[in-house]
């Protein structure tokens, strides 16, 4: 509980309407989209300007109060749970598009702008902001930057980090820094822009961003390819890339997911196939047509049992339904849905899917896998019930083994969701003890009193690495 005098100070900065400590507000900002994570803050503060954020930050620094910055709360790593109480700083009122610069092809935005609003604003004038995280209809750009969000277009167009050119941010001492700019080249000192992207609100509070835009692709087409064998699907993925084709979309569903989707939607998916690839290309019409033909030929060569190329918008919509319904279908099966994002080099997809299946069976769980085949970013999704503590314990062990398997295959514990609370115990597995030390040093340089999003990224204790015995 914060002393009344501090709450009074905060209220004086942002106004009573934007400084809430009633029960309702504390509960409403106690969670994000991460299952089984919840903690009440002491106060919810909703600033409207960088200056107000500086003033709030100074109050917090003076009294050593933690600040958890938050947008829509759509992340899946517990990144915005106020585990140590303190202030939840909600930036949703800072939601203005400051400028679209058609000369420099940039857009300048406040952190509370929704990702989908950026898409619509730039696409209306023939421009394109490619990062498209699954939660883009609600997620805000500040959250995307803080967590370096990915999405379906990652393979061809990269992720959020590839589009952030410059940032304005408030440091834990209340000072403002500006990094980068409307510049394609800038080597003046350390690249603080890239450092802040994906820093999960632990280093500074992002208050404005300059993003890179590109011309909007003229057309896009999609197709489905079904395989009786996971290895054939994986080989098709490798062959497409080896043929110098980088598809705009390259998604996959495993058999478990296909069955659940078909059960839920009845869209005529064959439930005996082992994998479905959803492949899309965008660009100049001629190039797209040529690429689609080649891709279809490659899939056929790899024994695809069925190929459906969409020729109309309606057909494209139908083709996309399977992938789009995946999460919906899976989440209806059981009360709790845990969506993970273990990631491997794309050549290792087949062994990774096999490892997940083996682990799932050994622990007697329901885990289905879908995800971004093109960039090796898999979403093993566990359907469980948070109230069943015995089962949840098995789920934890299974995921531990899945992370370990990903690392063994040259992969990582998280491809696009972030570390937050849920991956913190495993971070050392990926970056090593020396990596942890240097990261902690960076954190200390920015935030010596550990005020910004404490308890995230760095766990009190790392997990012991599980040793997986596999035949």
């Amino acid at each position, binding site marked *: 509980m914060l002393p009344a005098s501090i709450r009074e100070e905060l209220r004086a900065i942002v106004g009573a309407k934007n400084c809430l400590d009633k*029960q309702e507000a504390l509960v*409403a900002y106690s969670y994000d989209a991460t299952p089984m994570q919840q903690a009440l803050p002491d106060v919810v503060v909703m600033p409207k300007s960088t200056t107000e954020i500086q003033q709030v930050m100074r109050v917090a620094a003076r009294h050593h109060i933690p600040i958890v910055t938050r947008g829509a*709360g759509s992340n899946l790593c517990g990144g915005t749970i106020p585990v140590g109480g303190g202030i939840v700083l*909600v930036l949703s*009122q800072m939601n203005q598009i400051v400028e679209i610069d058609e000369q420099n092809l940039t857009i300048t935005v406040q952190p509370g702008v929704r990702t989908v609003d950026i898409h619509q604003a730039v696409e209306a004038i023939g421009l394109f902001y490619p990062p498209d995280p699954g*939660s883009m*209809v609600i997620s805000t750009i500040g959250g995307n930057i803080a967590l370096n969000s990915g999405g379906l277009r990652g393979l061809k167009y990269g992720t959020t980090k590839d589009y952030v050119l410059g940032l304005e941010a408030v440091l834990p001492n209340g000072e403002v820094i500006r990094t980068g700019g409307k510049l394609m080249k800038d080597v003046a000192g350390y690249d603080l822009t890239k450092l802040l992207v994906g820093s999960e609100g632990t280093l500074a509070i992002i208050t404005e961003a300059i993003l890179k835009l590109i011309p909007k692709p003229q057309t896009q087409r999609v197709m489905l390819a079904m395989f009786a064998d996971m290895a054939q699907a994986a080989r098709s993925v490798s062959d497409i890339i080896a043929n110098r084709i980088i598809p705009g979309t390259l998604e996959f569903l495993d058999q478990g997911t296909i069955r659940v989707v078909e059960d839920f939607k009845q869209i005529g998916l064959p439930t005996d196939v082992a994998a479905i690839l959803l492949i899309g290309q965008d660009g100049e019409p001629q190039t797209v047509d040529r690429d689609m033909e080649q891709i279809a030929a490659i899939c056929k060569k790899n024994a695809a049992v069925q190929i459906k190329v969409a020729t109309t918008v309606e057909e494209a919509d139908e083709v996309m339904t399977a992938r789009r319904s995946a999460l919906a279908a899976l989440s209806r099966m059981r*009360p709790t849905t845990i969506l993970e994002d273990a990631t491997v080099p794309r050549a290792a997809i087949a062994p990774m899917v096999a490892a997940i299946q083996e682990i799932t069976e050994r622990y007697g769980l329901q885990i289905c896998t879908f995800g971004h085949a093109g960039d090796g970013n898999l979403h093993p999704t566990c359907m469980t019930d948070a109230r069943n503590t015995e089962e949840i314990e098995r789920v934890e062990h299974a995921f531990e083994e899945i992370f370990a398997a990903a690392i063994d295959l040259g992969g990582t514990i998280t491809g696009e969701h972030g570390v937050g609370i849920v991956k913190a115990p495993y971070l050392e597995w990926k970056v090593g003890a020396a990596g942890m030390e240097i990261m902690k040093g960076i954190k200390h340089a920015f935030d010596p009193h550990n005020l910004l999003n404490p308890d995230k990224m760095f766990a009190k204790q790392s997990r012991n690495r599980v040793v997986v015995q596999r035949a």
Partner: protein
Amino acid sequence: MLKEALEKKLDYDELSNCMRCGFCQPACPTFRETGYEAASPRGRIALMKAVADGVMEPDKDFVDQMNLCLGCRACEPVCPAGVPYGQLIEQTREAIEEAQEHPWWVKAVRRLAFFHLFPHQKRMYQLGGLLRFYQRSGVQKAVRKLGVLSILPKQMREMEAIIPEASSKGIVDYFGGTVIPAVGERKYRVGMFHGCIMDVLFNETNRNTVRLLSEAGCEVIIAPDQVCCGALHAHSGEREQARHLARKNVAAFHKADVDFIVSNAGGCGAMLLEYDHLLAKDALWQEKAQWFASRVKDISEVLTRLVEPKEWQSLSQRITYQSSCHLRNGMKVTKEPVSLLQAIPGATYVQLREGDRCCGSAGIYNLVQPEMAGSLLDEKMGHVAATQADILVTSNPGCLLQMKAGIHQAGLEGKMEAVHIVDLLARVQQEEKPLSPLE
């Protein structure tokens, strides 16, 4: 007290099914208006769960937040996990109602409306007669002239201004019987659900409904023992009374042995469609309720199957459509009304931007939450004006009144009219001959 009531009523499994992805938020009118997490479906479910988990006390803020919800259920179709939010908010309101101590006069008004008025159709007609007297005898004119109405709050005055001419007779009286034969070959035997307010304030729409059904080849049974659907009761926390009404309706239409039960009001239809849920724990009625629910259809669904728009008269006007939330989100009927409108020869159909968003009427919401309802309506009328339509079509009486009020407020009177879809279709369909009952 409220805490115990909530614990008893809330379906904890469904609360747990919310995975907090937040996909409901862009669809929620009150979230979009406020940007405040607690004023979103995800937020409200989190508050319900926090109470059930003992994390918070259900205080006044809690109750206010639950009342701010329009109940439009736009969050349901976009929910990946299929959480039945509408049921959760009704369970919450039922608990609030049970625990709440109203002042004596609120209690009296609620009792009068929910128990002594809406459930008794004869009294509704008597009230309709009184209203008709008020409207026709010159009293209304005098009252308006004397400025007596200024004692009423603004939103009530606006309603007084747009309320249609009431009827003291129901459609059964009008047709002089309860069985209207099909014109031509009989394709279906359908039950007509006439509604309580519909039959008094929108009696003409009901008559047109019977006519359209009959001319489309339906034998229309206006089941004589039917009563109010209970939607207003359920939305206001009187679920027990809603169950009581549901049993009466199930019995009335079961006896009539019909292929479909047709509604022309999205709000009623969505309620009728959920009688199986409402009576799920009632061993005696469960099965019949399922029979009933599986037969409920909106008029637009039945007409889409049966009518031949080629025979319609040409109508060279611009038409736009504001959908009823409960027709869309409750009954899941989205395409049929639009395809009927698009089929009208000569007419130009213009899509209304955000025509799938609540207009703010939401039962009696516009009377109890005037501020939020007002800002939703202002936004809505901006989009409506942009369509430059001559006719604004709706599919529910509440929405129709709200749209009439919106046109009045936005100064669009004379340029645009709000019409129920049934009345518009009746306009383009040439009348064959006056209908008469079988009996």
